[in-house]
């Protein structure tokens, strides 16, 4: 039987970071990926915050397949036919540890997996692992078929949101609809010059958009838009519970979103070259499985490491940081003498050192707050109507800001106390 010191399941950002860290620590490491090559099964909105990558590969910027560095953040509220946006421009956004960039997963994941291979990890693709090999509850390796087992001292599960192995390991219960959202994304082709001209960007500069309100037909969720080199990533993340409750097809929501004038202006003339969909873990720290067991660690999306606080969507940075922490934890456990859960519990400490758990806990309330339907329907409409009152000059008498706000609030269906509570809760969780 084949044996390795460590097996990492999934060659996404979490898995490749874990494999790279393990290989550097001298573990013979097997990295198993179900896709034909890393990244082909992966999907995400489109942006990566670089800080964790800096920790893993200080020289990352030299050859990392960056599409564009994000120098402009936009938040846009939509109603059926109007939009209200906030835009933040700063060259500082694209620099140092705070830099974030857009990327294409097939390229990025391939690049990161190559780094793990260069460090000595063995990458095997085209194999789906859907069971663990366990003895008395201790994970001893992976099992593809009864006669196709590979042994290891420790297995790092970095399999993504569907988390089949995490459940097989007994670390997590079955997914509930309320725990996951559905993400859809269209990749729209436009010449690089057109993107630069249309968004007012330099050659390597990019823009990021978060859409709220009618982007999701009033369902809980939101839209996003990222500029790549010569494509635009346009998509939505929508509560799967709402989709099934309101019997709406995600394609329909995406169509309406795409056709909104405030979206159309960015993508017109573009050609949809790719369509993808994926599960997104939604409850953050609230749905985290047990992160370690005897001979096993969980990292990335499989661990629910995702932060959506309404203005930033984070996943890949947490995946990379958790992959590093998993590698460090396995190394610490080896030094402590065994891969028993008590030793692998060091994972918690490494996750806190890179603020993964602390950030997740800080925004623990955010996903629940984001699940407040009023945020996606009533309030954006209110905002827009206030804006309409303020900017309408037609001779019928113009309003003062304060009057417009008070009048609008008075005419809304939501009791004022509830509105105030929503506001307070929002401020606390965001």
């Amino acid at each position: 039987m084949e044996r390795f010191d460590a097996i990492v399941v999934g060659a996404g950002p979490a898995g490749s970071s874990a494999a790279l860290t393990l290989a550097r620590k001298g573990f013979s490491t097997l990295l198993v990926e179900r896709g034909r090559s890393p990244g082909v099964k992966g999907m995400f909105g489109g942006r990566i915050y670089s800080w964790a990558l800096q920790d893993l590969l200080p020289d990352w910027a030299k050859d990392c397949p960056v599409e564009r560095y994000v120098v402009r953040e936009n938040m846009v509220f939509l109603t059926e036919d109007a939009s209200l946006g906030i835009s933040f421009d700063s060259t500082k956004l694209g620099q140092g540890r705070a830099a974030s960039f857009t990327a294409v997963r097939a390229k990025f994941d391939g690049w990161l997996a190559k780094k793990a291979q260069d460090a000595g990890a063995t990458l095997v693709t085209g194999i789906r692992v859907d069971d663990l090999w366990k003895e008395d509850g201790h994970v001893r390796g992976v099992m593809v078929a009864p006669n196709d087992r590979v042994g290891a001292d420790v297995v790092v599960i970095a399999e993504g949101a569907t988390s089949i192995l995490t459940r097989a390991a007994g670390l997590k219960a079955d997914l509930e609809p309320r725990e996951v959202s559905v993400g859809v994304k269209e990749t729209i082709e436009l010449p690089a010059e057109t993107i630069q001209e249309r968004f007012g960007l330099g050659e390597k500069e990019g823009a990021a958009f978060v859409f709220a309100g009618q982007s999701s037909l009033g369902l809980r969720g939101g839209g996003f838009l990222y500029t790549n080199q010569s494509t635009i990533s346009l998509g939505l993340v929508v509560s799967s519970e709402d989709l099934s409750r309101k019997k709406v097809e995600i394609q329909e929501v995406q169509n309406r979103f795409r056709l909104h004038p405030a979206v159309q202006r960015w993508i017109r003339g573009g050609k949809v070259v790719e369509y993808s969909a994926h599960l997104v873990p939604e409850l953050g720290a609230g749905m985290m499985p047990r992160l370690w067991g005897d001979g096993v660690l969980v990292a990335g999306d499989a661990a629910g490491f995702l932060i959506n606080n309404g203005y930033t969507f984070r996943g890949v940075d947490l995946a990379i940081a958790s992959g590093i922490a998993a590698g460090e934890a396995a190394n610490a456990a080896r030094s402590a003498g065994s891969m028993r859960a008590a030793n692998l519990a060091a994972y918690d400490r490494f996750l806190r050192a890179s603020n993964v758990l602390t950030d997740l806990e800080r925004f623990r309330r955010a996903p629940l707050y984001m699940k407040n339907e009023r945020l996606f329907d009533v309030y954006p409409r209110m905002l827009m109507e206030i804006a309409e009152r303020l900017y309408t000059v037609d001779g019928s008498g113009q309003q003062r800001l304060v009057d417009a706000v008070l009048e609008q609030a008075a005419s809304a269906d939501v009791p004022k106390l509830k509105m105030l509570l929503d506001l307070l809760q929002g401020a606390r969780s965001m």
Partner: protein
Amino acid sequence: MRIIVCIKQVPKAQELQVDPVTQTLKRVGVPSEINPPDANALEIALTLKDRHPAEVVVLSMGPTSFDESLERAVAMGADRSVLLTDRILGGSDTVPTAYALSETIQKIGGYDLILTGEETTDASTGHVGPGIAGHLDLPQITYVSEVRIVDNTVRARRTAEDGTEWWQTNMPSLCTVNFGCNKPRSPTLTGKIRVKRGGVIVHWSCADVGIDPKKVGLLNSPTIVAKVDTIRLPPRAGRIFSGDAKESVRALLDALIRDRVVAP
């Protein structure tokens, strides 16, 4: 027991393209696969290995790009593989190919059973398997869909025109295997790791094997491709029968009978 399976790498059937100028099959830049009947032969070998102590050696002749298929064969469960690769083999038709492969099989040695596909999907001659049996003076059973080893003999089910036949031979012998007679297994994780660890393919040149250069290559291939025709389908008539359903179906049937498409 040592089983040698001869495989060829061919362009993927779904991706077949004919060069519009030369009218020959495009082989460069198209995705390739193990010739499907050869994959069926490999599956028979691996099934035998599941039941009996056996070593499965995979053999191919061609450019080093064939390593891709040899690696896949090992990942599926073969023990090792040999690639006969040499520029002087270029342009060989089935006659030099059968000769060169039989020489290589002798160099591997110790064989009990040789399996080949019934034919390749890119040339469809069906010559090479019987040619090897001829060179090695082996008993052969062609067009088999199942092989059993019983008391040191080979028993194989052969597909004949009017049914199936069971044949028995002593070992060593050769069988050519029917396309689609089984479902080739997928590569395993263990197999893919073995490939990654390396050392599962050896490359031999003609000199390594002792192949006579005067018997191989384009010049020593008796086949002459005189002409290649592309089938042109007759244009469709495009007649539409409309109106009352019963009457239009009747009219359609009459027309089909008149054109001898269906019997009255």
